[in-house]
């Protein structure tokens, strides 16, 4: 076993999930403590063109598994591919972004390698050879620490935006290692027939760096227009509280919270949301939280970074204009 740390670079259609680059930074930090290096594994079809970008974010070696069988994500096929890269690279640990793909893949790879697994880590540190993983527990009400034993292979999925990516270094190079891979029939048993967008052109709350959400105080579906206007200027997604979804102002696919979607964007703007426990559990992992609420005692302010005690119907359109001006420069 080397002291290198391998990062699974998640890509769909050649578009890399930004969290992958954040993990390259983390892998570099962790590996440096034991004289190892950050390495990357990318799986897909015609993904060789991504290696320069991956190198620019700090990978010293990139293992590429390329083939028509890998054009679309399939758990077993990708697990076989990542395991082949692991066998070749012999890393101490593999880091995977927490995403639908990452959660799915990491569990299969951990089982295949009989590795220690921690899912959705918000913090990872080394204690000797052991990896100490901090992750949510009990529906995100608490944080728990787990030790992934250093004498075993380690797999961890890490939450988006828990770490920041390093600035890309143009011209940085990495050794590119092609991993030849012929799938056995068992790993080809499923076929992905279609990948259909479900959000009709508007970003989903789980894929946006910025989420603007409205609560019950929006009072109607039509009033959400000012939320959409703000989200559009910021290239963000629109979310809503359970109360707003239950009232029919927004579809449940936009619901942020324990029973909706859990999000950890760079910026979360909560408009007219008081902050029920189940909503807070779904967004308190966001990097920066802005709360706009007329009630200064609202629980949302307990998790907010910035608070504006103001009427959202006045403030949100003003904010949209200010962002337009600021982003025009």
């Amino acid at each position: 076993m080397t002291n290198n740390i391998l990062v699974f670079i998640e890509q769909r259609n050649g578009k890399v999930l930004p969290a992958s680059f954040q993990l390259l930074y983390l892998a570099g930090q962790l590996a440096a403590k034991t004289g190892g290096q950050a390495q990357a594994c990318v799986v897909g079809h015609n993904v060789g063109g991504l290696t320069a970008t991956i190198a620019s974010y700090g990978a010293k070696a990139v293992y590429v598994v390329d083939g028509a069988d890998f054009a679309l994500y399939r758990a077993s096929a990708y697990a076989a591919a990542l395991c082949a890269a692991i066998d070749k690279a012999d890393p101490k640990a593999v880091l995977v972004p927490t995403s639908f793909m990452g959660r799915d893949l990491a569990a299969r790879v951990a089982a295949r390698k009989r590795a220690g697994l921690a899912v959705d880590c918000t913090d990872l540190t080394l204690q000797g050879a052991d990896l100490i993983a901090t992750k949510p527990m009990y529906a995100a009400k608490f944080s728990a620490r787990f030790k992934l034993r250093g004498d075993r292979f380690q797999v961890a999925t890490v939450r988006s935006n828990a770490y920041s990516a390093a600035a890309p270094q143009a011209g940085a190079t990495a050794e590119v290692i092609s991993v030849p891979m012929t799938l056995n029939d068992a790993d080809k048993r499923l076929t992905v027939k279609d990948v259909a967008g479900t959000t009709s052109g508007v970003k989903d709350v789980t894929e946006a760096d910025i989420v603007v959400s409205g609560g019950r105080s929006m009072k109607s579906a039509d009033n959400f227009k000012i939320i959409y206007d703000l989200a559009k200027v910021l290239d963000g997604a629109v979310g809503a509280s359970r109360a707003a979804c239950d009232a029919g102002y927004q579809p449940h696919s936009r619901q942020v919270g324990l029973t909706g979607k859990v999000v950890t964007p760079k910026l979360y703007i909560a408009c007219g949301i008081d902050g029920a426990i189940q909503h807070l559990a779904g967004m308190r992992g966001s990097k920066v939280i802005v709360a706009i609420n007329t009630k200064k005692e609202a629980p949302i302010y307990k998790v907010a970074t910035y608070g504006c005690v103001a009427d959202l119907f006045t403030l949100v359109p003003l904010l949209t204009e200010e962002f337009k001006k600021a982003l025009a420069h």
Partner: protein
Amino acid sequence: MRILVIAKQVPDSNAAIKVLPNGSGIDQAGLKLVLDPFDEFGVELAVQLREKRGDVSEIVAMTLGPEKAGEALRVALAMGADAGAHINDPSIAETKDEVFAAYVLSQAVKKDAKGFDLILAGKHNIDLDAGAVGPALAEFLNLPHVGAVQGLDIAADGKTFVARRRIEGAEEVVEGSLPVVLTIEKGLVEARYPSLPNLMKAKKKPVAVFSKSDLEIDGSFESAVEFVNIMEPPPRPTCKFIEGEPPQMAKELVRLLREEAKVI
């Protein structure tokens, strides 16, 4: 068609959960335990499949947990499962290593002589917030799996399926043959409440109990994960309230987000 559903017992997410002062775990006193709501979707789906199709011969609910986890099995039985399997061994019952748990479950599945065509589990369990049990179980049983399923059609002949799986902002449509492991996302089914008479009848349904030695657990596969401690989530920084009239407030907020927080 024989269906296996995984039915874990977890603390109720609607009840107050208290962490012990030394962080060694949660306070078990008066803790309300329930069948995991995502596993419950799996049980419900199995029962609905039987109601809609003529070919579901048996639904077995399996749990890994201490003695009291039998209550979660009973709920699954009351909802419509026919038989239970309880892996109840103090040395493994409360493992927090889902990969190990999946391995133990797979050993119990292998004890079943007739085999299962469909294995259902929750997308994740609300205690460990991980979701590794289903995919890892599939791996140990050398079966394919589809995770976070929110739509499902099984062909009339019971041989093939089409599942719709949730991903970020889209849906994957996945085809394959049974047997398969599926983990169930919220929204596919609404779980029924087991009636009191059904809860009573569930007591009479058979539950097989397994210990570690019954399952030929590979000793080299000791848990690679150790629980260290549990704590309140990391505190958020104190809220900085922005003063002034709305126009100034908007200007100042945009400035702070760009210059201080650097997120725009």
